[in-house]
């Protein structure tokens, strides 16, 4: 809502700078988008009088004008506007002036003829094309004759009037009008503006009820009123009205339409004007019939649905109610008789229609936010009167009323005790009463409180809490004390799950992975990758793009996108993890997906930067496995972590992927991303893991347990085996553990070798076995006996050759 400061001053005694006024509004009522002035940045633009005009010798459209700008000598200005003519009072940008868009105007030559400045169109000095009247759209602006030559133009175009643009919250529809804002400012500044009821100069020889009949569905239009003005003469509005409208952001059209827009701005009451001669019979407010069509004022043909409200005559819709008028009944230059409509339309229907047809107008916005039922009639009365004054004609006596609504004014009981209890203030009942007096809410003392009656213009106020807000904001939020909640104490701690989640992030970061956050909404294809269980897709009903149409069922695909983005920006080394939800559905009938917390990571390139003393090799399966292993170990999940080779993930390398289980429970997988997938994502060789974090959280945990360190020395024995390549480390270690005896404490694999000097189909594996007896020094023969036993079993059971 654009408020011209001068308009407010008609009602209120205000002398502070507009900026300060805006700040006050912002601190007390609604947000202010901006405070602007049309003349901001303009320089040396004055009213000129075209004394004479000749055609340019070398051009068929340029004219050479002699322009009086109040100086000793007239200026010679070349002008190409089609509507330029001698005798006009026009906008002149003098030499060395600055016009719209920060353009400087200098003396120049146009096709060899000197031009001392420029005669300007409105949009050239900064007006939006949207508000320039049609009359001046394709040429220069011409003033009325009574303006003083040589004076700066700004005042005569309303450009020196500060405009405060309000961003009105949905509840404060009352502030979408000058009068609503005046009431608000009156409360803020404790003033008592006089708002006069309009007088209507009716012609008793004409009766509105004889002119037109109207019916309305009361559900659709609580109030529906018409006035008739006969015999008007359509013309452009006077300059003051045009200025008022363009400062409000509305394009002036003609003296009838402009009045309806002026009233809209003043009262917040949208009006519509019909050409009576174009209406066929009686008017009715109803829902559209399926397939009914209307061509609206913007000359668009629109197909209506049964949820659109229309104003219709006998034959067809003549307006989409409250949203936009019909083309076929609009006021044109030949209109004689005008039907003025002032109504309250149902906000829900208006909102849906405005959305459906993408027709958000000044009118629809107000019907959506609410209309003051007290001024429906005042608005149409003032409009009729203004039209008569500006366009002549006769106002028919009376108002045609199809429906009417006078709401019962709510009375709310409020006490000082409750107010202070909620606001934390220390106000007396008298303080509170004064605030309501300022707001213009009548109040009556009863018992220990007040009965406050809410005027119809504040339809946002229904309950006690609404009044607390009125008190708080008029009293001033700055005056509110600042305290902390007291009373019963609470202890704030993270839950065990939250502690694990936080620890999980810290562990992975300590292991070198940086936290990523990618999008949960992705494509169908990516959502279905790296599936850890069967699941149906969960799709949005109306996505913005197919890229974000489906809920992810894995985190990895988002991380691969991240890797691709980094690769595309020449970052080869990427180590990322992400924790978040994936969404599973067991069947298509299930609407709400199950949300499972996952954690996933990717590694590509080098984990640490190569440096003069850090000769890195690219990451591989085992580097990532070390990270995952450490991660799960640090989480304290009870039981052994096992890795089983798998080819069940189509997006993973079939020979370099393992399912991970902890204590026999499947928790996820690790491996190399399938080269085909890597190619599809445009990424280099990448290793990845994804784990079901929820399972890891739910699995039983081991606490740290302290065991005294053995005082007796350990004994280490190394063993080197030659085994078939098909024998896995797990098999060897399992056997060693099984047969290693009571004192076998630790097994370390320190070498694996295949190739030269090792027969085909075989590999060499070397282990250190560490023996400890916590109770006494181990005797050499005890260790040797245990070691020999392990060797024998390795030979017997795994066909190992001990080297």
């Amino acid at each position, binding site marked *: 809502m654009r408020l011209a400061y001068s308009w407010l001053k008609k009602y209120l005694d205000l002398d502070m700078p507009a900026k300060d006024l805006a700040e006050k509004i*912002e*601190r007390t*009522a609604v*947000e202010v988008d901006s405070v602007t002035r049309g003349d901001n940045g303009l320089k040396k633009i004055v009213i000129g009088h075209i004394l004479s005009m000749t055609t340019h010798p070398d051009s068929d459209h340029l004219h050479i004008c002699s322009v009086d700008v109040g100086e000793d000598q007239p200026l010679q200005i070349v002008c190409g506007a089609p509507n330029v003519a001698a005798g006009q009072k026009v906008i002149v940008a003098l030499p060395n002036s600055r016009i719209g868009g920060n353009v400087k105007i200098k003396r120049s030559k146009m096709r060899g003829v000197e031009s001392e400045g420029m005669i300007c169109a409105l949009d050239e000095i900064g007006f939006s094309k949207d508000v320039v009247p049609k009359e001046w759209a394709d040429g220069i602006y011409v003033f009325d004759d009574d303006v003083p030559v040589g004076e700066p133009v700004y005042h005569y175009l309303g450009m020196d009037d500060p405009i405060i643009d309000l961003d009105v919250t*949905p509840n404060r529809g009352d502030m979408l009008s000058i009068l609503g804002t005046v009431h608000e400012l009156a409360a803020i500044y404790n003033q008592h503006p006089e708002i006069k009821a309009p007088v209507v100069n009716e012609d008793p020889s004409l009766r509105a009820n004889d002119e037109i009949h109207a019916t309305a569905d009361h559900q659709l239009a609580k109030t529906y009123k018409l006035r008739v003005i006969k015999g008007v003469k359509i013309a452009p509005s006077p300059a003051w009205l045009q200025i008022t409208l363009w400062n409000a952001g509305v394009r002036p059209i003609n003296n009838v339409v402009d009045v309806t827009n002026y009233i809209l701005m003043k009262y917040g009451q949208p009006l519509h004007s019909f050409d009576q001669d174009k209406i066929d019979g009686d008017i009715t407010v109803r829902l559209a019939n399926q397939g009914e069509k209307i061509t609206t004022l913007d000359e668009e043909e629109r197909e209506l649905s049964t949820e659109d409200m229309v104003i219709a005559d006998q034959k067809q819709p003549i307006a989409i109610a409250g949203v936009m008028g019909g083309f076929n009944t609009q006021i044109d230059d030949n209109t004689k008789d005008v039907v003025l409509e002032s109504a309250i339309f149902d*906000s*829900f229907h208006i909102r849906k229609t405005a959305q459906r047809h993408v027709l958000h107008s000044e009118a629809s916005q107000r019907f*959506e936010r609410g209309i003051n039922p007290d001024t429906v009639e005042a608005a149409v009365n003032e409009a009729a009167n203004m039209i008569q004054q500006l366009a002549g004609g006769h106002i028919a006596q009376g108002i045609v009323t199809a429906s009417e609504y006078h709401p019962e004014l709510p009375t709310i009981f409020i006490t000082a005790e409750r107010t202070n*209890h909620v*606001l*934390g*203030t220390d106000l007396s009942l008298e303080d509170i009463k004064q605030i309501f007096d300022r707001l213009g809410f009548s109040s009556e003392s009863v018992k220990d409180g007040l009965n406050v009656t809410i005027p119809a213009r504040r339809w946002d106020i229904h*309950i006690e*809490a609404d009044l607390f*807000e009125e008190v708080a*904001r008029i009293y001033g*939020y*700055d005056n*509110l004390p600042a*305290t902390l*909640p*007291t*009373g*019963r*104490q*609470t202890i*704030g701690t*993270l*839950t065990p799950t939250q502690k694990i989640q*936080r620890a999980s*992030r810290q562990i*992975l*970061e300590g*292991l*070198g*992975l*940086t*936290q990523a956050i*990618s*999008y*949960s*909404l992705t494509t169908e294809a990516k959502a279905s990758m790296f599936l850890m269980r069967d699941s149906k897709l969960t799709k*949005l*009903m*109306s*996505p*913005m793009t197919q890229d974000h149409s489906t809920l992810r069922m894995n985190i990895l695909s988002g*991380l691969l996108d991240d890797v691709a*983005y*980094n690769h595309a*920006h020449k*970052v080869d080394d990427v180590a990322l993890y992400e924790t978040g*939800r994936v*969404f599973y559905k067991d069947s298509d009938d299930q609407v*709400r997906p199950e*949300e499972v917390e996952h954690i996933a990571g990717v590694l590509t390139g080098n*984990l*640490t930067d190569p*440096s*003069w003393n850090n000769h890195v090799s690219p990451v591989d399966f085992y580097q990532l496995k070390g990270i995952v292993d450490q991660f799960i170990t640090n989480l304290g999940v009870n039981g052994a972590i096992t890795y089983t080779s798998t080819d069940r993930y189509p997006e993973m390398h079939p020979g370099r992927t393992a399912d991970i289980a902890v204590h026999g429970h499947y928790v996820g997988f690790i491996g190399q991303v399938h080269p085909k997938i890597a190619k599809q994502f445009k990424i280099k060789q990448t290793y990845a893991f994804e784990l079901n974090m929820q399972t890891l959280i739910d699995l039983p945990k081991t606490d740290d347990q302290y065991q005294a360190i053995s005082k007796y020395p350990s004994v280490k024995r190394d063993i080197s085996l030659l085994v078939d390549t098909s024998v896995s480390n797990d098999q060897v270690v399992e056997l060693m553990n099984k047969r290693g005896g009571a004192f076998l404490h630790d097994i370390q694999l320190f070498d694996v070798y295949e190739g030269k000097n090792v027969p085909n189909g075989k590999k060499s594996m070397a282990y250190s076995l560490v023996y400890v007896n916590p109770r006494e020094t181990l005797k050499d023969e005890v260790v040797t006996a245990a070691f020999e036993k392990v060797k024998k079993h390795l030979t017997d059971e795994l066909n190992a050759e001990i080297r």
Partner: protein
Amino acid sequence: MSLRDQLTEIKQKGLADIDSTTDLKKLNEIRVHLLGKKGPITAALRGIKDLPVDERPEVGSYANKIRDAITQAVADHRENLENAVLNKQLAAETIDVTLPGKPVAQGQPHVIQQIIDEFVDLFLGMGYQVLQGPEVESDKYNFEMMNLPKNHPARDMQDTFYLSSEYLMRSQTSPMQARALEKHDFSKGPLKMISPGIVYRRDTDDPTHSHQFHQVEGLVIDRHITMADLKGTLITMAQKIFGDKFDIRLRPSYFPFTEPSVEVDVTCFNCMGKGCDVCKHTGWIEVLGAGMVHPNVLEMAGVDSKVYGGFAFGVGPDRFAMLKYGVDDIRDFYLDDVRFLDQFDKRGI
């Protein structure tokens, strides 16, 4: 030459020999020679018995002194020689300390996570609990329980991704407030909670809009919680998270789930309140919305609004991060460019 003079000569020569030695092995030889059984002191001592009895103790003690002096001189000189050797070795071992250290792998928390953790830690310290809920919510909890019945105009304000007529991607973390209000046993104490998490809006991604972003909402409900408590809590939050010099101000606003509702500005990060382009020359930047919980929200969750009341607030960590670090494109948070993420390695300390 008297025995005493002999001993003096042994001492002087011995000390001179020790002093002139540059070699540890040689020094040891000298020590063995001088103090050994076949050495000159031992030999001189043997001559004591030829002295008159009354002179013996004096010369004997003199001999012992000389032995001690030589022993001490050898030890001192050995230490000198050893130090010299060590110093030489250390000099040879000198390195260029300006060469870079060996790289280690260390990941960073996401900048938005850091901000969320800061909020979480602050509010845990003030006795709040942290509650997280589903990202797919029912219309009931996301809207209706928040005093946004179907067809409420404010629903347009937050255009929502629906999965069906009933389920949607939560557009705010406030559904957790309704869930917590329903469950909470107020006889056991007040409800003080924050709910951090991802939320979704049906927006086209551009520098200032993202269809996915984060929210941290807070709620405090008890018998006597005031708007002044809200103001004090928010001031505490601003000062703990941004610094003591930061202040806040409240402006009226509108949210269906609070009444009164306020928009909260914090001192401009860029100009510290003097006014600059970032804050449109107001000195303030809008950072969060808050208010006193609407009685309808309490009643719908089965809480008696005549007895209980309190405040709620909601902040956007994405916006906080943008303001705090001057990030001008919200999409940067979701691209996971390593060069972007690794800049935030101070972990909110």
